[in-house]
């Protein structure tokens, strides 16, 4: 056994400066809600006019309105224009690899029940390279909020066809117009078993905030598709959903039963611009709760035992 195998003493922290850590930090009871200035970090790198600005602004608003502290949330993203999100938010955050933000976020969610995990990403991240993770995170009902900023195009790589590009959309990878049938994110989410499925658009800020709040309050995997226009590569894509551009913003009908999966699916089948609001919501136990339940059955059984004593029980059986 080498020295390295001997338990390390608690490891000193690095990069924490020389000042006394606790002096500058107000007591928990003295803390006021954060201002926009306090939650904003880097200036976004998005193009002027990008729909993503609106989503970011409303995320700030959510944090302000709901008095969320920096350290109580984690912002996670994969790769894409929208996935630059964590850099713009003053909170613990991670910018992960393309398409895999959901399993990364699941690791945080399942091991850190004290944090609320927000994941932001685009349509390529969610439905193309990360399609498998979308289905499985939804079916497992892992607690987190996933906001997909859907712009129907690959923006960061400059105009290739995306999984949500409509048929006929001319891109650099489909100069004749897209030939592959697009994914319907709502149908995908409902079919996968997501327990909160909502649709909104960046041009209606109040509605975006409403959806974010409802999603955050949902105990489970909450999914929001937020239409977010790419002014550079798909200008006008969502005009028909924007009353200011002569389109129609229709809320989900008041009599829609959000617990009715088939009704939700039907709603998702409406032609664009369709409806906006919560399509589907159900209360299934989360994976987080189910794992905690398994653990509870053991914590009762091993009450009072130290970890090494539990392990010793196994070793005694191996003699």
């Amino acid at each position, binding site marked *: 056994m*080498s*020295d*390295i*195998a001997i*338990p*390390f003493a608690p*490891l000193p*922290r*690095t*990069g*924490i*400066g020389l*000042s006394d*850590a606790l*002096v*500058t*930090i107000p007591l928990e009871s003295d803390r006021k809600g954060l201002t926009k200035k*306090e939650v904003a*970090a*880097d200036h976004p790198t998005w193009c002027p006019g990008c729909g993503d600005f609106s989503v970011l602004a409303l995320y700030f608003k959510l944090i302000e309105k709901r008095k969320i*502290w*920096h*350290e109580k949330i984690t912002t996670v993203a994969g790769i894409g224009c929208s996935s630059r999100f*964590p*850099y713009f938010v*003053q909170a*613990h*955050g*991670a*910018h*992960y*690899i393309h398409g*895999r933000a959901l*399993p*990364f*976020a*699941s*690791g*945080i*969610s*399942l*091991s*850190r029940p004290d*944090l609320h995990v927000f994941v932001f990403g685009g349509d390529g991240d969610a439905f193309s390279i990360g399609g*498998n*993770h979308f*289905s*499985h995170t939804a079916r497992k009902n892992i607690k987190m909020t996933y906001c997909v900023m859907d712009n129907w195009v690959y923006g960061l790589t400059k105009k290739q066809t995306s999984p949500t590009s409509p048929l006929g959309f001319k891109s650099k990878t489909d100069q004749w117009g897209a030939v592959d049938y697009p994914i319907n994110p709502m149908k995908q989410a409902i079919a996968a078993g997501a327990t909160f499925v909502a649709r909104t658009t960046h041009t209606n800020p109040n509605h975006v905030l409403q959806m974010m709040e409802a999603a955050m309050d949902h105990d489970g995997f909450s999914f929001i598709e937020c239409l977010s226009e790419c002014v550079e590569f798909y200008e006008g894509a969502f005009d028909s959903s924007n009353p200011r551009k002569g389109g129609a913003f229709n809320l989900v009908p008041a009599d829609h039963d959000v617990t009715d999966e088939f009704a939700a699916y039907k709603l998702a089948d409406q032609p664009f611009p369709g409806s906006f609001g919560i399509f589907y919501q159900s209360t299934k136990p989360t994976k987080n709760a189910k794992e905690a339940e*398994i*653990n509870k059955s*053991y*914590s009762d059984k091993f009450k009072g035992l130290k*970890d*090494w004593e*539990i*392990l*010793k029980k*196994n*070793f005694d059986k191996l*003699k």
Partner: protein
Amino acid sequence: MSDSASTATPAGSASKVLKIEEAVIRIAGNSQDGIQAIGGFLARLAGRSEQEVMTFMTIPSTISGGPSIFQVRIGSGEVLSAGDEADMLICFYQHSYEEHITSLKLGGIVLYDADHVTPKPEWEENYRHVGVNISSLTVEAVGGTGRDKGKNIFSLGLLAKIFDLNIPKLTKLIEERFGGKDPTVVQNALTCFNAGYSHSFENLLKTYQFYDAEKKDKHQVVMNGNEALAYGLIAAGVRFGAGYPITPWSDIMELLRRELPKYGGSFIQTEDEIAAISMAIGASYGGRVAVTGSSGPGISLKTEALGWASMAEIPLVIVDVQRGGPSTGMPTSVEQSDLNICCFGGHGDSPRVVIAPASVEDAFYTAIEAVNIARKYSTPVIILTDQAIATRIEAFEEPDLEKICQDISPDFTPVAEHKPYDLSVGDGVTRHIAPGTRVGSGKYPVVTGLEHDEMGHPTGSPKLHVQMTAKRRNKLRKLAWDFPKVKTYGPNEGQILLVGWGSSEGPIREAVDRARAVGEAISSVNLKYINPLPNGLEEIFRGFRHVFVVELNDEGLYGYGQLAAVLRARYCEPKIRGITKTDGLTWKVKEILDRARTLASQQV
């Protein structure tokens, strides 16, 4: 059996008893015959009798059926490998007989099931043949249900008789194993065992008796390498993991899935390999080192995420239980051909740590080391184990769990400020604060795969890319100084130095023992730390005329195995040459010696 056999006649026993140092027993049948169970019982008995034991098994990669063997070597002294040749072969079928007779020592004993095996006259001269109607006697003993299930336990009874094994201990083991089930199961097992034990060999066979093993201070535990590794992770304080099933890694994830909830942790079965490593990285980022793992193909899938962990400097433990590759390869055979992907796999310069356990016991402690290196250096660490260690059973001294088990809960004490990638630290070693930690300055860190500044924000600065690349590299250079000094097995000068890693260590050391016994100046070193390499190897190499790297992989386009190529690149030392093979089987001591002697006689 052993060279030092002598005769002794215990009081009260009319038959002749031969005292032996050790025995190698190979049991050959089909995979559903419960052959592994016999081996398991023998191994566990050896552990409880303070003997040394090592096993070797092959299983077909088909779901059910197909030939299977289990070899167990039990000794009163040190046992370093599963044995080149068997002293006894138990064979259930004609194919087992014909396939494995050559694994037997000349003059060795073939104990065959006379119901299924017809001995060949040409082999009867060279090996002692003893036929027992194992199948029909088992059926007779259990009560004529017409099924020969239980012939493994019957055979265990035969072995107990031949090797004068400790009956109370074995009976207890059988009761423990089958206890808890339907009581008739234990009863049937004991009936089979007793039937075997009371079988009369008349004068066909002597009884053998092991010399008493040296008294050990502590109890021994008996387990396979995958179990040892998984328990090591638990002892190290790992409480979260994620994985996807693949042979031979699956045992580890099954064990962790079963055990972690007892400690308030979880192991998650994910939708794919990429999700597995991503989830583990997410949990690690959450503040406590997490584990993922796989075998060959799964490791290929994980490399992009591994690169992210290297770039974002997230601590993580990744287990690679190597099997025969490439592609689906030979899923149930051993190979050491993942060294390259583990050290270098991935795009860009992505330094990571690779350490390789050499035995079952070592797997337990290596897991703890991996966790602690990952924590201290905030880096991904790969535990490069292999199928041979994963599946073989060894007995080793019970670890002092009270002393070893560690608590690695995250620290959430607020900090005034925090730079996740602080460049002012000379050696490059920085650690993250876990999300949930308050930062007084109000400036929160981002962890990222983009090249970044000290706060984790993206940068295209040429200078920062140079500095951050150096930081990630330098911290592993620093780590190399943490490693214990490499020691040679045998004198530190001589003709030949055998360099090995992973499961090859045992047979290499046995080769050294054997060679030195006949006066050859051969020594060996085992390299546990593969990436970075430990410091001071060049000094050791200087003491030998030849340096041969013994590994289970292909010699490649340029004639050197994977570690040999790294060592040659690192030391520019032409006397480093390779001894490799790709038959999917562990090294035999004889193979190593023959190859080393031949190579030494050839010009460099």
